[in-house]
């Protein structure tokens, strides 16, 4: 009987102790149950002609003079991953919505490569349907960024956001780790790729690992925060900061994240903060559903308990010491 009471007491104690996590979990599960809308593709047929060549490593064409079939490798730059394309944001686009309609003819006219490509704002600018994404504000922030000020001629939205594969991330994903990996892969597509980096800069591509040697627990940081958390100027008006700063202005003070008011709440966890999920008793609870940041997550109840316990101990010792001093 006694053992049953003991086990029940332990279970009740741990249930109360861990209740904040249970609350956090409940809130999370309500968001995860959303079912994706079914897509109705209307341009797959038109695109399939382009993808006959542009979705493959090897292309075949006929030599008109002798009728021989010639095989050539398709350049990586012109090859499209159709799975990613049809899962991306532009999944229902015709290739010729953006590319010149003359690309319908093969072989393509070499001069076509000099035609201007549309920019993000050409479609998304001023359209109330896209107002929530604030493309205009993003454009203003990008213009201020080091990417634009130093490499204006070479740099465009497409340098980071491949329109063939880009998929909106921070706003939809419940798993922050996926957003981190996806967003960091955008930065690394240049900063860890010499060939692509040199399309924009003649400098030697700095080694990311060496440059971040100062960062304690480097691998863990790389997996749990995005590059832009430290390298972009945060902006309250947009969800994802686009004003990439010169390296001298990068965040290097640990306490900017490891403190009561972590900058992560204005960047990586901004969307979660907007959704305002609360884990009871915890400071900066938005972070708790995905991870834990030393210094940023403090339990209010635990803090109060420790202060009271500490005060009681000091008071008890003081009274004991005083009474001891009084005896002769």
């Amino acid at each position: 009987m006694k053992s049953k009471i003991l086990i029940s007491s332990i279970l009740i104690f741990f249930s109360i102790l861990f209740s904040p996590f249970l609350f956090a979990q409940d809130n999370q599960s309500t968001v995860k149950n959303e079912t994706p809308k079914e897509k109705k593709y209307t341009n797959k047929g038109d695109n399939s002609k382009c993808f006959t060549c542009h979705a493959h490593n090897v292309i075949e064409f006929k030599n008109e003079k002798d009728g021989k079939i010639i095989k050539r490798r398709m350049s990586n730059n012109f090859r499209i991953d159709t799975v990613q394309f049809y899962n991306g944001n532009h999944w229902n686009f015709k290739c010729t919505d953006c590319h010149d309609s003359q690309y319908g003819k093969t072989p393509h006219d070499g001069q076509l490569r000099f035609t201007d490509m549309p920019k993000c704002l050409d479609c998304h600018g001023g359209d109330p349907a896209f107002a929530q994404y604030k493309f205009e504000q993003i454009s203003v922030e990008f213009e201020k960024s080091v990417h634009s000020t130093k490499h204006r001629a070479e740099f465009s939205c497409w340098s980071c956001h491949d329109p063939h594969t880009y998929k909106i991330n921070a706003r939809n994903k419940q798993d922050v780790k996926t957003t981190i990996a996806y967003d960091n892969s955008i930065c690394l597509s240049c900063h860890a790729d010499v060939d692509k980096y040199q399309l924009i800069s003649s400098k030697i591509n700095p080694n990311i690992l060496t440059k971040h040697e100062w960062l304690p627990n480097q691998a863990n940081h790389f997996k749990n925060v995005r590059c832009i958390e430290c390298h972009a100027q945060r902006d309250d008006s947009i969800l994802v900061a686009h004003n990439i700063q010169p390296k001298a202005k990068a965040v290097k003070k640990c306490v900017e994240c490891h403190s009561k008011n972590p900058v992560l709440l204005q960047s990586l966890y901004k969307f979660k903060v907007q959704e305002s999920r609360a884990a009871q008793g915890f400071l900066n609870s938005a972070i708790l559903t995905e991870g834990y940041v030393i210094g940023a997550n403090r339990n209010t109840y635990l803090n109060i308990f420790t202060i009271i316990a500490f005060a009681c101990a000091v008071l008890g010792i003081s009274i004991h010491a005083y009474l001891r001093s009084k005896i002769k």
Partner: protein
Amino acid sequence: MSHNKIYLYPVWIRFWHLFNALLCLGLIITGINMQYTSTDFQMFGFVWSVRIHNICGITLSVVYIVFLFGNFFTKNGNFYKVEIKGYVDRLLKQVNYYTFGIFKKEKAPFPISEERKFNPLQQFTYIAMMYLSVPLIIVTGWLMLYPDVLVHRKLGFNVLLLTDLAHICFGFFISMFLIIHVYFCTIGVTKLSSFQSMIDGWHQSHD
């Protein structure tokens, strides 16, 4: 009043105790700085806190292994063995002495001797510290040092968070123990005699 001297603390215990105390102190100070640091206030740099905390934590693990070996191979380990029968009564008797008896100038119910280094209350707290809190804080500390080995989420719980909470809780218990331990060390033949005994190895007691 004349005093008896008993050689109770051999060299290895004194060195272990010294390192243990210094490391715990370093860990508590840097731990508080890491947990409660902010852009407005910090005792010293976060990076240094992390570095010192890690170094002290790893060293404490080594020092703890020395303690375990020492207790296993010397008779010091016997002082941590509890005779269960009548233990609660002895514990309450000691608590009663510290709460009331000491002010009535009563004699200590369990005076320190070569056979009994710890009174029942010391036995209880030292076992709780050295065989529960310290090993658990070491294990959770190592897990925090290599968080990748932890399952991120299990049965709906954030395992890393639970590990860290346990680490902080045991850190708090050890901090409280340290304060009370230092105070109780002033209850000796003189206020400094217990501190001196951890330097020269000789425990002083009343006749």
